[in-house]
Every structure is written in C-alpha cells, then in structure tokens.
C-alpha cells in the first residue's frame, strides 16, 4: 500500500570486512509483490531485516512511501512481518495471536472478528483459532504467523520463507489464494525465499541475490528468457538451464563436452561475440524439443539416456556428442531409453555467457 525504495543499501556485520549486503538498489511499486531469492547466506534475510528495522543499515537509504525509515524503530515503520521461526506468542490463543496488532490499534471488535475470520478461512486455520500455538504442527504455526501479518493494514508486508513448512498439496492452493489476496488488496509485499518455484509463482518481480549482490531484478519471464548471468541461469528453472563450455565458430557456436571436444554446433548470428575468449552456452530444457521438426531450430541427433514421465510433463536425459542434456517434454513425450532421436534446439532458446565474468552476452542466436 506504499512504495518501497532501497537505494544503494549495504550491510556489514561487526568487524567483518565482507559486505553481507552490497549496494542493493531496488524500487518496488505500490501494490507490487517481489521476492528476494537466493541460497542461504546470500544476503536476502539481512536485506529484509534492514527493511523491517531489526538491523542497522550500514550505508544507503530505505524509503517506505516518501519517508526515509533508516533511523525509525521497527514499530514506527508500519510494516507487517511473518517470521521464519513463526515467533507466535505461546500464552495466547491462535485467534488472539492473529488479532494482536488490531487489538493494539483499538480496532472495533466486530471488525476484528470479520478480518480474523476472513484471513483464517483463506489460510485454512479456522478450526485452530481457539488452540494454543505449542499444540500446533510446524506447518500450522507457519500459517498462523502468516495470518498474523496479513490481517494487518500496513504500508509493506515482509514474509520470511512463508511457506517452507507446508505440505505440498496445501502449498499450491495457499500460494494462489495468498497471491489473489495480495493483488486484490494491493499489498506491497517482499517475500524472502530460497525456493525459485515459490518466488516465480508468487511474485510480479524477483530479485536474485548471491554473495550480497543483487544479480538480477526482473519479471519471471526476464529471468527465464533473459538471465543476466550464469548464476541466475543456473538458479532458475526446474530442471535448471543446461550449461556447457562453448566456442565461437564461423557461423555460430559449438558446444564442448567434458573432454573439451566439439559435441554439436548451433548455427546463427554471433555478432557481438568477437571480443570474448571463453564462452558458455546455455540452453533451457523447457525449450528443447525431442522429436525434431521445429522450424527455426538446430536439429541434432541425441541418444536417450533416460526418460522420466512425471504425469503432466516429462524429463528426458539425452547424450548429444558426449554432452549431457536435459529436455522437458509434454506428457506424451517418453522416448524409450537407448533410442536415438532428433533433438531440436530453437535458436532463440540459446544463451551465451562470458566464461570469466559469467555475464550474459547474447540471448538467442
């Protein structure tokens, strides 16, 4: 319900020389849902805690709406947070936990009951309202913690690993309901997660972090189709991008196998390439078509090593010239292991990266 702007924000802990968060800038629009995505230690939680006010900002400014909040206490920032460790008040019933901040603001009783009822229906915790937190399972406590944050009217909502403990069947439903709720109420939201599927399912834009640095901040489509560097390319997607060392040829690129031999070539324009020596080639598994016959694609012969049918899609492991390639097929694509099949690689699904810096050079040939 407010904009949230981070301007060159850094965090250094104690006498550490390393920056845990290193010059992160991002501008989050009013009502936008963003995810801070990365593995543990990448700086995502530190960033969230600085926004919440639990950590000092070493340098840079954080603005919520028009207000610089660097020196405000957490309680003065008007943010709601769901903690990874739940942080529920054990002596209070679930209902009182959820209503806690509303009670503090002297919200009328009827209004409180209505809102607690709505949020607990959404998160499927209605039957738990009169229980005490210690008697709940981890997943249930996590939902209560989420409800306690979402029931509020705050300028920004901060959710730290909000769904890590939920059983998979419930997770899909709650993701969708929460996203519905957040867009309907135009809630400015920052979600911290290490799970790229969760980040992509929930957010309008995703900030990928590694080693304290913001690697890329873009829409899920940007991350998939235009990854800024090798780190993002190998982090996003399930299965993640196929990445191989490669080399430039006269009319395109060639992919090298583990022994450094040419495995297969992909013809295409490589205009911006001449200055680079080391090269990595990335091919998204979801775009590779097993069976051939795709216009605008390079077709090579591959041996099927394994073929895993997963219900609504399939994963196919291929060996092409000694390179191990994963392709995602639709639910009818299950070529038998051992067979040799044509494999189409669309030119626009090929990404080139600089080996030394990891930065993307070109998306599509």
């Amino acid at each position, binding site marked *: 319900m407010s904009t949230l702007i981070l301007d060159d924000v850094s965090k250094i802990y104690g006498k550490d020389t390393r920056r845990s968060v290193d010059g992160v800038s991002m501008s989050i629009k009013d*009502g*936008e849902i963003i995810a801070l995505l990365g*593995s543990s230690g990448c700086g995502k939680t530190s960033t969230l805690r600085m926004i919440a006010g639990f950590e000092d900002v070493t340098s840079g400014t954080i603005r919520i709406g028009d207000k610089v909040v660097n020196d405000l206490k957490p309680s003065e920032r008007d943010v709601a947070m769901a903690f990874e460790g739940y942080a529920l008040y054990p002596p209070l019933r679930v209902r009182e936990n959820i209503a806690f901040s509303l009670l503090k603001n002297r919200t009328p009783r009827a209004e409180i009951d209505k809102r607690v009822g709505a949020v607990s229906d959404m998160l499927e915790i209605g039957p738990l309202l009169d229980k005490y937190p210690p008697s709940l399972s981890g997943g249930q406590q996590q939902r209560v913690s989420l409800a306690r944050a979402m029931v509020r009217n705050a300028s920004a909502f901060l959710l730290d690993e909000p769904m890590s403990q939920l*059983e*998979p*069947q419930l997770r*899909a*439903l709650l*993701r*969708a*309901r929460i*996203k*519905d709720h957040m*867009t*309907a109420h*135009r809630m400015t939201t920052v979600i911290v997660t290490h799970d790229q*599927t969760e980040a*992509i*399912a*929930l957010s*309008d834009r995703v900030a990928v972090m590694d080693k304290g640095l913001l690697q890329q901040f873009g829409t*899920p489509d940007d991350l*998939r189709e235009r990854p800024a560097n090798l780190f993002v390319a*190998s982090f996003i*997607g*399930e*299965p*993640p991008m196929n990445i191989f060392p490669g080399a430039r040829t006269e009319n395109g690129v060639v992919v090298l196998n583990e022994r450094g031999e040419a495995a297969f070539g992909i013809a295409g324009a490589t205009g911006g390439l001449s200055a680079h020596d080391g090269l990595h080639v990335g091919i998204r598994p*979801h775009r590779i078509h097993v069976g051939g016959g795709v216009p605008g694609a390079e077709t090579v012969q591959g041996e099927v*090593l*394994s073929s*895993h*049918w*997963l*219900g*609504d*899609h399939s*994963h196919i*492991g291929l060996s092409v010239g000694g390179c*191990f390639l*994963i392709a*995602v097929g*639709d*639910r009818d694509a299950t070529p038998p292991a051992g067979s040799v099949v044509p494999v189409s690689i669309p030119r626009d699904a090929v990404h080139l990266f600089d080996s030394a810096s990891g930065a993307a050079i070109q998306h599509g040939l």
Partner: protein
Amino acid sequence: MSFLSIDRLSKSYRKNEVIRDLSFAVDRGEFLVVFGPSGAGKTVLLRLIAGMVRPDRGRVLLGGSDITDDNPEQRDIAMAFQNFALYPHMSAFDNIGSPLRAAKVGEAERRRRVEEAAKLLRIDHVLGHLPRALSNGQKQRTALARSLVSEPSLLLLDDPLRNVDAKVRYEMRLELPRLLRARDTTVVYVTQDYKEAMALGDRIAVLADGGFQQIDTPERVYNAPASARIARLFGDPPINLLPAVRSGAGLRVASSEIALDGAAPDRAECTMGVRPEDVIVSLEQASGAIPVEIDAVTPLNDRQVMLLRADDGTEIFASQPQGTHVVPGGLPSGRERPRAWARLDVSRSHFFETASGARV
C-alpha cells in the same frame, strides 16, 4: 520368486502403530520406490529392513532366507542416508572402503575397488578429503559409492537427494537408474517427492496411514489411483476433487451441468477427480464449460497454473502447458478478476466414492 519379501510386518512405538501388517515383495533387480507424506513410516520401514529396528510381528525375507533376527552387519544390505551419514573422522577413501575393510578385503584390492567406485561417481579427485571438505553433492556421491562398493544384493536409499542442490539432484536422478541397472542391484528407495518417485521407480509403493495404499507402476498410480487420497499425492498442483451429482445424462459439478461422454459412474453422487492439466480454460464462453473467474496465476516452471473460482465458490486448479498464456502478463493489481470458462476433460477424469474415497 521375489528377492526381498516383507511378510505382515508391524511395529509400534509407545502404543502408536507406525507400521501395520505390511506385506510386499521386490523382484531381483527391481527399483521399488516407497513414497508417502512425511510421518508415514517410511524411515521406520527402512530401519526394519536394515535390522536396526526389530519388528513387533512379521518377517523379513531376503533371497529366500529369513533375516528377521539377523544383526545389521549380518545382512547383505547397504544403505545411503538422507543426511549422508559419512564418518566425519575418516577420509572419503576410508568412508568408501569401510564395507571392504569389514569384509577383510586386502589392501591392494580394496584400493582398486574404492577407486573404481569413486571414478564411476566422479569423486576420484576428492578421495583424500575429510567429509567436511566436500560439497553436499560430493558427500552424497561418497555415500553412494560406499553403498555400492561391496556390491550388495539389496540397496536401501533413504531420500538420498533431499539435501543436494537442484543441479546435482537432476543429474543424479538421471544417472542413478543407469548405474544400478548395470549392476542388477535391487533397490528400495524412499522419497517424499512424487516426481522423484515417478521418475525413478519401476513400481511405486504408496505408504500412508501405516500401510500400503497402492503398489503399482508410476503410470497406473497416476492414471488409475486407487483412492482420492492417493490421487492427491501425485501432481502439482494437486488434482481437483469436486463433488458431483448425477443429473439426467450428465453431471452437476460446481453448480454447472456438464455432459458425460462414455463411462459414467452409476451412482447418484460421487467425487470427480480432474487433474489441473485436464481443465481447459478459455476466455470465450463454451457450452458444457463452468463459468469461473481467474483468481490468481501462479506460474510453475513454464506452465501457467491458475486458481479458478466458480460462481458457487468452488475452487478449481487449471494448469496449461508452456506457450499458452490465457491471461498474458498475469493479473492486474486490484479487485477486478477476468471472467473465463473452464471445460473439464471428462474422458480423463476419475470418479471416487464420496464417503470412502475409493475409486469407482
């Protein structure tokens, strides 16, 4: 003749019966995946087979002989653990060589076999390292090498890919079956990831509520689930389970009439199971389709997953394959929700009894 057979096995902890009258058999060279939600008793089952835990009742037979009362070290069984269980004070080499040392294999022969296993799993360059110096992927490979080095007749794998990163997980998923098939190893593999179960298993044993609900090929488990409960365990997003009432020649689902072509359940009411990929969403009105609004779009890899809400409040998941965006660019912020029509593919639907959830 089955190789491993479990005969009416039961085990209780403090009056809580974790495993109840469990029986199954695994053929030589078969890859059986035991799949179930957490807390279903999968780990206890592995421990019963390994001999670390003794059953209250029932027998374990391996290669025709009763091993129920044998100590773990007397059973020709190897195991790899979710937490790797590498001996922290021994190098990777000594970890892998441990079963050979127990079997009193000579030093030269031991070195040869450890190196061979390490090469197969591509960890031959880290053999001198202590476990703490290995990455999670290398730890898992070391643990696997240790379980393979003595060429056991039965291999138990306890969710071995849970703690490794996505890249290694995919590599191993594809590599593991080839590695094991080449050695004709019999495998019991435990996981709580349905995709892993479907990808790896010759058969999947679905463990829930202390017993096996279904033991079948991945295809049968997915396409012909024995119950609504099993159907919900496979698929992401999970299957839609919609109350359906017989109405003339068709069915009434989510307050809409839908036509039935062919096999119809001969019951007045039942639960209709429709997988999200069998729900076709269109922005244009179509006959026999349920009017809905699109509440949320939550992309899953390249698939567009949509939560639909019918006029009577019923929630329906739909999942469209890559390249078909019903709502390009996702939903706008605010309360406005686009109107759409959802057609359920009846020919691919499942019908379950309302009360018991059993397949009709």
